């Protein structure tokens, strides 16, 4: 990748190739080149040579504490989860080589959908090959021509891409602004279908949505409600079902979207619902039909992990304690954070600009700490931030070490 990038400003001239289709990427190429020219390690091509645990890895040759993995509950190295995956790999082979609706539904796919129905206490569960595809598939399929999708402007890329893949009218509103959402819903022509799309936790700043009030407004307007709970599953809400459960309105949500690639600790996506006609989506949802199903080992690890997450209240409490301590510690050190109070297991540290952000990211990596560098256009309001996500397996000692690393790096870069 980096070789291509370094050549992009002097493309080879080929006969007959009048327009280089890659010219549209020149701004991004320039931004990347300028960033690397300042001498920092490339934040977007880090390699983990060895993974020691959910919280430790050898990154670019250094023993590193992982603080940017979304591996909230630390299930990736759970012995039961690994044993289930190994057994499925041995018994069912390495892959299904088929669509869920043809030869790609194995016993394990049924079992993971059973586990999801039990976890959420809902009638239906449909598993996709990634969380991205779950949003892509559900949103583009249920909202069709003439329908309206009303969504938060800070929605995840997979939600926007679900809107782009479908034919509905797309109407965004200002982040978490209940009145802005209310006004837009009120202007939709009578008789049109309405889908409101919200997230429980917004992953860039780690803030939660006032779902109780927003869903009540959506219901008043007769809209169906979809909530993406990717960043809350497993530790927010009395049963870890997410922010909607925590605010007592899960029964008002028509569709919950989730992922296996965060708390569950593997890969895959899903939608759970009580809609009586839900199962028909298996035949009409293209991102579900036209892709190979998850490998047997993946669904076996997911099912085992989901069932264990139903009984992990001690781990949940430790994750919250970690999140509160990191948030409070960074605030006391003088860093600017994405939220005033810790609202999730994501703590976003706001950087003055991309250059300082990249320098801080590298200083932390040299200290032995990995966080996510997030930059425009993925971030709201064009800010650069260092996104930290805690894990239930981070020890008290590690959180203390992390705060020390932030203090030294922040002072050397001149941010605090």
């Amino acid at each position: 990748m980096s070789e291509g990038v370094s050549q992009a400003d002097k493309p080879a001239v080929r006969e007959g190739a009048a327009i280089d289709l890659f010219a549209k990427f020149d701004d991004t190429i320039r931004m990347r080149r300028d960033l690397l020219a300042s001498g920092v390690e490339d934040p977007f091509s880090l390699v983990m040579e060895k993974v020691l645990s959910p919280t430790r890895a050898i990154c670019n040759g250094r023993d590193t504490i992982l603080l940017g993995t979304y591996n909230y509950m630390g299930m990736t190295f759970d012995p039961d989860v690994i044993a289930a995956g190994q057994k499925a790999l041995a018994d069912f082979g390495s892959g299904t080589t088929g669509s869920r609706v043809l030869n790609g539904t194995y016993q394990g796919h049924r079992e993971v959908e059973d586990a999801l129905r039990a976890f959420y206490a809902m009638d239906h569960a449909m598993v996709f090959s990634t969380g991205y595809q779950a949003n892509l598939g559900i949103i583009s399929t249920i909202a069709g021509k003439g329908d309206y999708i009303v969504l938060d402007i800070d929605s995840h890329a997979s939600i926007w891409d679900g809107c782009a893949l479908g034919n509905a009218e797309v109407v965004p509103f200002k982040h978490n602004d209940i009145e802005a959402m209310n006004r837009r819903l009120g202007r939709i022509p009578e008789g049109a279908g309405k889908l409101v799309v919200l997230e429980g936790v917004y992953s860039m700043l780690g803030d939660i949505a006032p779902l109780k009030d927003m869903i009540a407004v959506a219901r008043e307007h007769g809209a169906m409600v979809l909530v993406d709970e990717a960043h809350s599953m497993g530790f927010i809400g009395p049963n870890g079902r997410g922010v909607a459960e925590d605010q007592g309105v899960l029964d008002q949500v028509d569709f919950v979207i989730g992922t296996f690639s965060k708390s569950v600790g593997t890969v895959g996506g899903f939608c759970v619902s009580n809609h009586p006609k839900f199962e028909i989506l298996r035949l009409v949802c293209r991102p579900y039909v036209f892709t190979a199903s998850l490998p047997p080992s993946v669904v076996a690890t997911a099912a085992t992990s989901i069932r264990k997450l139903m009984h992990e209240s001690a781990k949940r409490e430790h994750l919250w304690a970690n999140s509160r301590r990191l948030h409070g510690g960074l605030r006391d050190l003088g860093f600017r954070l994405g939220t005033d109070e810790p609202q999730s297991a994501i703590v976003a540290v706001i950087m003055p600009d991309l250059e300082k952000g990249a320098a801080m990211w590298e200083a932390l990596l040299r200290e032995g700490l990995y966080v996510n560098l997030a930059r425009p256009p993925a971030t709201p309001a064009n800010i650069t931030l260092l996104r930290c996500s805690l894990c239930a397996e981070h020890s008290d000692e590690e959180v203390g070490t992390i705060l020390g690393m932030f203090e030294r790096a922040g002072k050397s870069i001149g941010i605090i």
Partner: protein
Amino acid sequence: MDRAQVDSRISSLLEPFNKASVPITDSTTFAGDLEFDSLTVMDFVAAIEDEFDIIISMNQQAEIETYGQLVDAVCKLSGQ
């Protein structure tokens, strides 16, 4: 409310977003001349939607490149 009135109301809504005081004609483009990024577009569209009590969906926004096209679209959407 005729086109001139819609034009004048949009023009005053545009003022705080036109930081470089680019002269506005019907052929002024938002992306090119006014250098609006996606966040500015969102705030500007929200201001117009609230002023005229209309929805300009993302799908409709994709068809609007110039100031004149916006005034025409708002006239149409608000039933003028």
